[in-house]
């Protein structure tokens, strides 16, 4: 069983991310949502319709970019637009322009690069003014500029009221786009919420590092006593402070009062990736991914 007891609500008008490790059941879930796969049980309603018994009413309202799918090799880009355009479709030419495919109008699908194919799938997903757009591994294979372009298009689409369900492995993408994310493991949603809430719940530790050849004991003591600081460690001139994300401003403020300010001050703030790792590993408090070896512990508290 790939998906079991899944409880997932996608509020209208939101961008919701579906995250999880490979094999968590994300793609199976979106296939069920689109009626491409029949669930063994449970209740599934998409825009008020049952995807299994009412696919002909649901599918015109959904635009999707599927993983592991293709177009006929010899189909030209302009012909693909013609094939997938419903009578109420948007102007395909504008969409091609928006996603940088105008020059490829006459190119056959097999001659497109991976990034161009992804952009074409996105154009096709948006073509028929869908109320719900499902994007599975949306920006896989796109260069950074194309990725930003696609993100802007998704935001614009969402501003126009379209609901977006985004399946992704790219945490920066989920953080940049999603109002809410749901994290799946072994077919279940194990947590859901705004990206910031997930970070707060599962990866709230920030790490601050700086060098001070002869740090004043008063400074270290002041830092150690700050609310939220859990640990202050020293290794030679290198000092590492760990604690809740809110300590960052306080530690920096304390440092500013002691001249000279360390030139190598580095802050590792936890992100969604840390939260996801913490959550998937069943660890409630992961270190930010940029962590390093610890030195002598000179203070800390819980």
């Amino acid at each position: 069983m790939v998906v079991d007891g899944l409880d997932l609500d996608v509020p209208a008008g939101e961008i919701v991310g579906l995250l999880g490790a490979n094999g968590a059941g994300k793609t199976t879930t979106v296939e069920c949502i689109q009626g491409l796969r029949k669930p063994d049980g449970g209740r599934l309603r998409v825009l008020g319709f049952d995807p299994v018994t009412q696919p002909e009413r649901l599918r015109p309202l959904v635009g999707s970019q599927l993983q592991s799918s293709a177009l006929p090799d010899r189909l030209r880009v302009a012909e693909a637009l013609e094939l997938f355009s419903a009578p109420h479709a948007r102007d395909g030419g504008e969409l091609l322009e928006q996603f940088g495919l105008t020059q490829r109008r006459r190119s056959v699908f097999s001659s497109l690069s991976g990034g161009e194919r992804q952009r074409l799938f996105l154009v096709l997903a948006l073509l028929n003014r869908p109320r719900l757009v499902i994007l599975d591994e949306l920006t896989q294979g796109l260069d950074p500029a194309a990725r930003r372009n696609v993100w802007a298009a998704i935001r614009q689409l969402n501003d126009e009221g379209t609901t977006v369900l985004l399946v992704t492995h790219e945490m920066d993408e989920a953080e940049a786009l999603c109002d809410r994310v749901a994290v799946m493991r072994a077919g279940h949603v194990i947590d859901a919420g705004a990206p910031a809430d997930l970070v707060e719940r599962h990866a709230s530790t920030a790490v601050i590092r700086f060098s001070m050849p002869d740090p004043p004991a008063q400074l270290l003591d002041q830092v150690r006593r700050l609310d939220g600081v859990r640990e202050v460690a020293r290794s030679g001139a290198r000092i590492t402070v760990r604690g809740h994300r809110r300590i960052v401003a306080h530690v920096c403020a304390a440092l500013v009062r002691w001249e000279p300010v360390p030139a190598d001050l580095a802050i590792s703030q936890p992100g969604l990736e840390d939260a996801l790792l913490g959550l998937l590993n069943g660890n409630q408090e992961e270190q930010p991914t940029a962590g390093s070896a610890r030195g002598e512990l000179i203070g800390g508290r819980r």
Partner: protein
Amino acid sequence: MSTAVGRLVRAELKLMTRDPLVLTFVFAFPVVTMLIIGGAFGTRPDPAFDGTNPSHWYVASYLTVVIAATGLVMLPVHLASYRERGVLRRFAAAGFPRWSFAFAQLIVGLLTTAVACALLLAVAAPVYGIPAVHDVWRVAVALPLGAVAFVSLGVLLGSLLPSARAAQAVGLLLFFPSFLLGAGGPPPHVMGSVVKQVAGPLPLTLLTNAVRAPWLGLGPATGSLIGVAVLAVAASAAAARRTAL
């Protein structure tokens, strides 16, 4: 043609004209082999060919080669390749009805055979001449029935075979023996008894006989025509049950 099915049929027709397998197997192969074998036995009436002109025998036989190439090679490979690569999933997700793709293939398959048959006759006419059709109605019934039977068989095979490679292997394995024993090979009178027994019930043999015999005035071939009709009904019913492909 602005409905989803209409758009699909139009796109598939365009794609068919760009498919090398179609151009090779459905259009070029029957014409080339008909020209070769049609000239191999001369034009003098021959008892081995039921007393007919051998060239005319093959002209009247080769329309069914076009139909078999479409049904046994072109369609299975096309459909299996689409399913393997996720093209059918994309069509389904885009809201094309479950039956629409199979329906589009039926239309494309029938039109392909019609065009390829016209091409075959156009090439045969100046070279060997087109034999007079003795029983127009029987030929006019047998050809479309055979086309429906083989195109449905092709849709069915394409829905059952797991990959384009498998479809190509199975399709060629079905096509060439059928072609040699039932349409484009030696006439039944020169075959050994075992080979003749094997060839007799093959679908392509039945279809060729149902077309060639009334065309050349060799008899009504009612048994063969009934066999083709049964195959058409059975194959189209089985294909319709698997319209999800």
